[in-house]
């Protein structure tokens, strides 16, 4: 196999020096592949994608995108290198219009912003009528589309989504996962953090299960789904009182 789209090795990262949240996480992700990152609340899933995005300090380990190191680049350079990221919360500019959100998504582009935006609207025809509306006024599903569309503006090699289905109606969740598959088929490597384990495993090619900042399970999505240990990780790893 050629160089993976994204390769992470022995990654240690955290918010405070000396207190690593991630303690040695690694995986490979090929173009067109979907990797689900699973795990109980507080496992470090968001921290993992935020570290790759350049928002959380890395203490040790490697992050390579198509062979080139992303480690310690500031977030805007990580985007320019081809890694787009949709955060878990506050993932659109609520005060800006849909058009302006997409324009900012394509901030690093020198030209061709209009064509890219047109392609995003092809992918999400519902948004066409809302181009001049403030993103904060849209429905949850539409807002998620703006967030994903904003990330796709750079035509990334790797797209990372942090809980894209959270808070959405089941039918909208279906649409979001269908869209993720479509993006992957176009050759983009997709990293998707999910609480919705069943839907994620049904969509993903492979899965990585984290708990307390370390890898607990990984492999083909089907194998992970069949592994009895997964329920135990969710129950055992969850802080008291949280429901899986």
């Amino acid at each position: 196999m050629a160089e993976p789209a994204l390769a992470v090795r022995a990654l240690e990262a955290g918010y405070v020096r000396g207190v690593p949240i991630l303690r040695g996480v690694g995986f490979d992700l090929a173009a067109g592949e979907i990797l689900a990152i699973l795990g109980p609340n507080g496992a470090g899933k968001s921290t993992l994608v935020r570290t790759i995005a350049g928002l959380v300090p890395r203490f040790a380990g490697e992050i390579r995108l198509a062979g080139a190191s992303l480690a310690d680049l500031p977030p805007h350079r990580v985007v320019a290198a081809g890694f787009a990221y949709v955060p878990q919360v506050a993932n659109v500019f609520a005060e800006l219009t849909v058009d302006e959100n997409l324009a900012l998504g394509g901030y690093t582009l020198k030209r061709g912003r209009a064509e890219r935006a047109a392609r995003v609207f092809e992918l999400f025809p519902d948004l066409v009528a809302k181009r001049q509306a403030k993103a904060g006024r849209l429905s949850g599903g539409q807002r998620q589309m703006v967030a994903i569309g904003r990330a796709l503006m750079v035509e990334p090699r790797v797209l990372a989504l942090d809980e894209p289905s959270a808070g959405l109606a089941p039918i909208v969740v279906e649409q979001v996962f269908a869209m993720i598959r479509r993006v992957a088929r176009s050759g983009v490597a997709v990293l998707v953090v999910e609480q919705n384990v069943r839907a994620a495993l049904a969509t993903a090619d492979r899965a990585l299960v984290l708990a307390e900042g370390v890898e607990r399970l990984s492999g083909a999505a089907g194998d992970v789904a069949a592994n009895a240990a997964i329920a135990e990780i969710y129950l055992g790893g969850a802080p008291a009182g949280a429901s899986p």
Partner: protein
Amino acid sequence: MTLAIWLQSILDGLVIGATVSLGAIGITLTYAILRFANFAHGEFITWGGYFALAVLGAVAGSQDLKALLGGPFEPFSFGWPLIVATLASILAASALALILDAIYFRRLRRAKIAIASVIGAFGAALVLRNLVVLGYGADPEYFSREIQIAIRFGPGLRITPDQIALVFVTALLVVSLHLFLTRTQMGRAMRGVRENPDLASVSGIDVAAVIRATWVIGASLAAVAGVLIGLTIQLRPSIGFDLLLPLFAAAVLGGIGSIYGAVLGGLVIGVSESLAVMLIGPEYRAAISFGVLFLILLVRPQGILGARA
């Protein structure tokens, strides 16, 4: 006759308010994007005025430059020398702001101690003001000693040509800033960073560049305000510090973070001050801003145009 006096007072207030607006825009931008109350902002006004004064002095001292730049544009009291001086002042004030940020404010932000930036700015304000005292002494300075003849219009109202120019320049700057923020990528990026710096950075926006742009815009508008004050009133090392309270009052009144709010707030402050001078005399002029500020914090802390938090 009395109506004319009131109208004149409102007109004078609008003229003063225009310069307050220019300063308040900078306060509100810094607050929205850098997230701290910049007590040093007034000094960009002072330094802007004195930078222009220095350039004017240099022009007046050189026969060649005087011949090249010519005399005033009638009926205004100023000509090319002041325009050149203003442009130079904008550049110098922007450079000052960028240097201060690079060696001082950026490090204070990194310390992540909320007080550091605010008190650091308060200290910087006193240092900057006293540097002007060191260079120029504490006495007032004038761009030109000539008294301008006011134009009379309407029911006995007066306005000088320079004051008309002041209002026109302010309006032009506000409209340009509006177009910049809504039509350019950098303008959109500034609005994006204001709302969510992390999301902005993962969209590919270089937040540090946006911060630099914020300083440059704030300092440039302040420098113009300083020049306009020098042109229509006089320069003293304390003009910026004395304006600080009206600037904050205007920014809070308009809704912190809102450009149009700052403009509106500046005009309201200017007119209130001017009317108060009529009613209770000039001694308590500066306290009017505090009155307005106090009232707005009491009844509508998010300001007139601000969104509810």
